[in-house]
């Protein structure tokens, strides 16, 4: 496993760990059997802007770093913008991931979409 410095930074000092109070969109994907679970918490304001985001992750270094980077990247975005968020955005921001770890970035993108869906379902 060869990780970039950015990955290692985001693993050792991850941003936005934990549960934010008053989160109104929560998404969880993955399964422990596969070795990764990611849970994303979003706080979305009435203008549809993501004011805050956080995560809890069971997984490898890449999973933790992807969660950290992904949450950091979507804060301040509208839910439309966040809806277009792709796993490759995480990979690029991390300076790359080993081939066998790309799926961690996919999980992060999926968890965000799940959290947005959750928000929209609750609102509807």
């Amino acid at each position, binding site marked *: *496993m060869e*990780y970039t410095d950015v990955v*290692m930074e985001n*693993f*050792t000092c*991850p941003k936005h*760990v*934990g549960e934010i109070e008053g989160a109104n969109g929560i*998404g*969880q*994907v*993955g*399964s*422990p*059997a*596969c*070795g*990764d*679970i*990611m*849970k994303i918490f979003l706080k979305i304001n009435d203008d549809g802007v993501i004011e805050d985001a956080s995560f*809890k*992750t*069971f*997984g*490898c*270094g890449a*999973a*933790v770093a992807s969660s950290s980077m992904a949450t950091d990247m979507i804060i301040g975005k509208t839910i439309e913008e966040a809806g277009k968020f792709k796993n490759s955005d995480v990979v690029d921001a991390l300076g790359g991931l080993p081939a*066998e770890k790309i799926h961690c970035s996919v999980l992060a993108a999926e968890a965000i979409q*799940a959290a947005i*869906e*959750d928000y929209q379902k609750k609102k509807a």
Partner: protein
Amino acid sequence: MKRIYLDHAATTPVDPTVVETMLPFFTENFGNPSSVYTEGRTVKKSLEVARLQIAKAINADPREIYFTGSGSEADNWAIKGIAMKNQAKGKHIITTTIEHHAVLHTCEYLEKQGFEVTYLPVDEFGLISLDDLKNAIRKDTILVTIMFANNEIGTIEPIKEIGEIVKEKGIIFHTDAVQALGNVPVDVKDLNVDLLSISGHKIYGPKGIGALFIRKGVPIDNLIHGGAQERKKRAGTENTAEIMAFGKAAELASENLEKNAAHMKELRDLLIKGVMENIPQVRLNGHPEKRLPGNANFCFDYIEGESILLSLDIIGIAGSSGSACTSGSLDPSHVLLAIGLPAGVAHGSLRLTIGNHTTVEDINYVVENLIQIIDRLRKMSPINAECPIDDAVFEKASHHH
């Protein structure tokens, strides 16, 4: 930063004495042992010294020792060589579910070639049952291959008893003793084994050299055909330097076996005690007593193994999660699954394997830091005692509906 290496089951540093032994064979004594002139003859004689060292270490006759390019090659040779040579007698092989991949994948390959393989299960400690073995033996069973000691959880199988059962039936018995050598006594005469695999880099020798013990008279096909080396059983110009190194390493390992094993066992028990008493929600994998003196293997609930390894690496500690050979693939360890752990738990495993030069300070440092690492990772995890795995899975499943 000082590094604490606790992955001796993956590989060991080469002993400086062993490096010394090897060096002349690259430049001065570089001859091809098959050559008739002085340069060749000198080396040929030296090889016989190494062969004798290996033979002594496992109580074999030197003429029963055949050098190979790795432990994996020895395993492949033993299994395929016996299978191919004896297929007229039968095509059934017995092994276990916890073998090293060098055995498992070889057996799977033979299945594709029309052989039948029985994979014996193990109990929660990783031990096979002798009754299972007896029941599995058939008229057409030509080979039983059961590992001496497991590389992940350290469990030591009852090789002598297995040997008795197998011998009585007139079946050939191979054991993969790659992890056993240098850790526990290995005596081919006492154990009733017909073939036994060992590897240099697990006993402070170099990588890329192994050996197969083949009891005199055991009918076996070659795996590598060609020149007349190794009494026509294994072709290829001899890896002279590494053979000399392996011989020396084996000699050192058997001379110091008791001392080394006692040292490792003391530190292992200190490590196990430290972890079990200070970290909640942890289990020790493998057998409490019938285990390799240097092996400690834990599962920490709610967290994943690679993130433990990375965290340890950052502060200078080298450990492994599952077998080193399989960490390239991200599958949960087949051994941990075989002892009955759910996949989710298996992902949270940590193997720390102690060596001859590990110190009490090393262990204390590891325990102290591990407590914090596990705590930090658990705080980051979405699963815990209150929100257990099943919930997590359930939530995910429901999300997809």
